[in-house]
């Protein structure tokens, strides 16, 4: 099989859409109220060292993905066990994002339709994309990112008359405690989730291109989330914002231009679907690559359909209701995701640096 190559522009588009994925819709509501933007800035700053670690892994292991790195550094058995945890994380994350979409459909858009129907449609679309290869995903992401930014910009302009700037004050009303707690949540969801991208590092062209991808993803994704946070906050205010499951949808539904341009929240739903399509596809791709690596398969395509179906089923029975979903996303997830996003990559990086320095010492020895 030919090696798949993902140009920088396409990989940056995937990274940006991956980061903004569910945050675009779920919002970042927490306890920080009108200071959520400060939490976002702190979370972005906290993510910078993590991005350096991820980018450094690409330099230390050129042409390898996360699973190759784990097996190379920790050996066949331990490497495969840790790989299995990452396969689970990718599958679980994909299922969580699909479930967000399912809950959105059942709560807001398609209230009479069983939740599994829209999730299965998106899931099968992702299976098709992943089966076609990462290059197809890259090209789709490049187009969809332009589309997303255009719609976001348009919605932002149309929303300006509805902005009530007093919602921003008083800054730091709730103190630093809730802001730091929310920053921790934002660090793991969505910025830390980019760890999944380590599974496609093999497809990146140059040795140092990962740094560009991770930092562009962080800055652009963070910028988009910041714009959405401000829009939601200025339209709805902190009290209403914290009581909604899908604040972006409600905020956009308030847009009314001369009683003519109204009810345009459907356009924001399209943005949600495009971003989650990229996010779920990447999770499915990485899970398939992982299974293929762990079981030494000839092609990852052999397991794409089954893993995609499992992801959709998992999304169906993972939560009992939307409150459980909200509770998991905002309270449990920030602890649950830490080993995958921070501990294992840090351990891998430290071991890889030690091995690399030992290798250099041996080379320089007479």
């Amino acid at each position, binding site marked *: 099989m030919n090696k798949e190559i993902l140009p920088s522009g396409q990989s940056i588009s995937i990274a940006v859409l991956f980061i903004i994925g569910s945050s675009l819709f779920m919002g970042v509501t927490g306890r920080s109220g009108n200071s959520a933007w400060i939490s976002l800035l702190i979370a972005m700053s906290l993510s910078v060292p993590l991005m350096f670690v991820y980018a450094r892994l690409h330099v230390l292991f050129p042409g390898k993905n996360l699973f190759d790195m784990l097996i190379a550094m920790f050996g066949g058995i331990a490497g495969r066990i840790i790989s299995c945890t990452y396969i689970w994380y990718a599958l679980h994350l994909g299922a969580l994002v699909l479930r967000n979409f399912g809950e959105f459909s059942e709560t807001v858009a398609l209230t009479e339709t069983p939740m599994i129907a829209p999730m299965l449609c998106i899931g099968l679309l992702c299976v098709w994309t992943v089966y076609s290869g990462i290059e197809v995903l890259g090209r789709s992401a490049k187009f969809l990112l332009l589309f997303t930014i255009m719609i976001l910009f348009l919605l932002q302009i149309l929303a300006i008359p509805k902005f009530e700037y007093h919602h921003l004050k008083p800054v730091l009303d709730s103190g630093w405690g809730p802001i730091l707690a929310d920053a921790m949540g934002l660090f793991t969801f969505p910025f830390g989730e980019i760890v999944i991208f380590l599974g496609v590092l093999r497809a990146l062209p140059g040795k140092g291109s990962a740094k560009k991808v991770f930092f562009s993803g962080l800055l652009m994704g963070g910028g988009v989330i910041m714009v959405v946070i401000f829009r939601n906050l200025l339209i709805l205010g902190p009290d209403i914002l914290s009581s909604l499951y899908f604040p972006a949808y409600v905020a956009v539904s308030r847009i009314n231009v001369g009683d003519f341009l109204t009810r345009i929240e459907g356009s924001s739903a399209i943005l949600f679907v495009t971003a989650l399509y990229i996010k779920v596809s990447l999770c499915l791709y990485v899970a398939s690559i992982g299974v293929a690596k762990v079981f030494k*398969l000839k092609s990852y395509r*052999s397991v794409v359909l*089954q893993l995609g179906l*499992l992801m959709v*089923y998992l999304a169906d*029975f993972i939560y009992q209701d939307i409150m*459980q979903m909200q509770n998991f996303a905002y309270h449990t997830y920030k602890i649950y995701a830490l080993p995958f996003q921070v501990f294992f990559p840090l351990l891998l990086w430290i071991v890889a640096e030690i091995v690399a320095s030992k290798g250099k010492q041996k080379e320089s020895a007479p």
Partner: protein
Amino acid sequence: MGAFVVLAYAVIVLLDPYGLLKRGMKRDFYVCSALCLVSFCIAFALSMHWKVPSPSPVIVNLVSHFY
């Protein structure tokens, strides 16, 4: 609904695992068949409205145990 799932999976088995076997990819066939069996069991259970245990409570318990 259960019958529909069985029919759908008959088509999936013909297309996916059996296709791999015909192409001589034996290892891929075994892994795909195992995954297919698991996904069929879950799909059938969901179609019959049986309760499938969710991993979320386990994760929540685990997290609350450590934090």
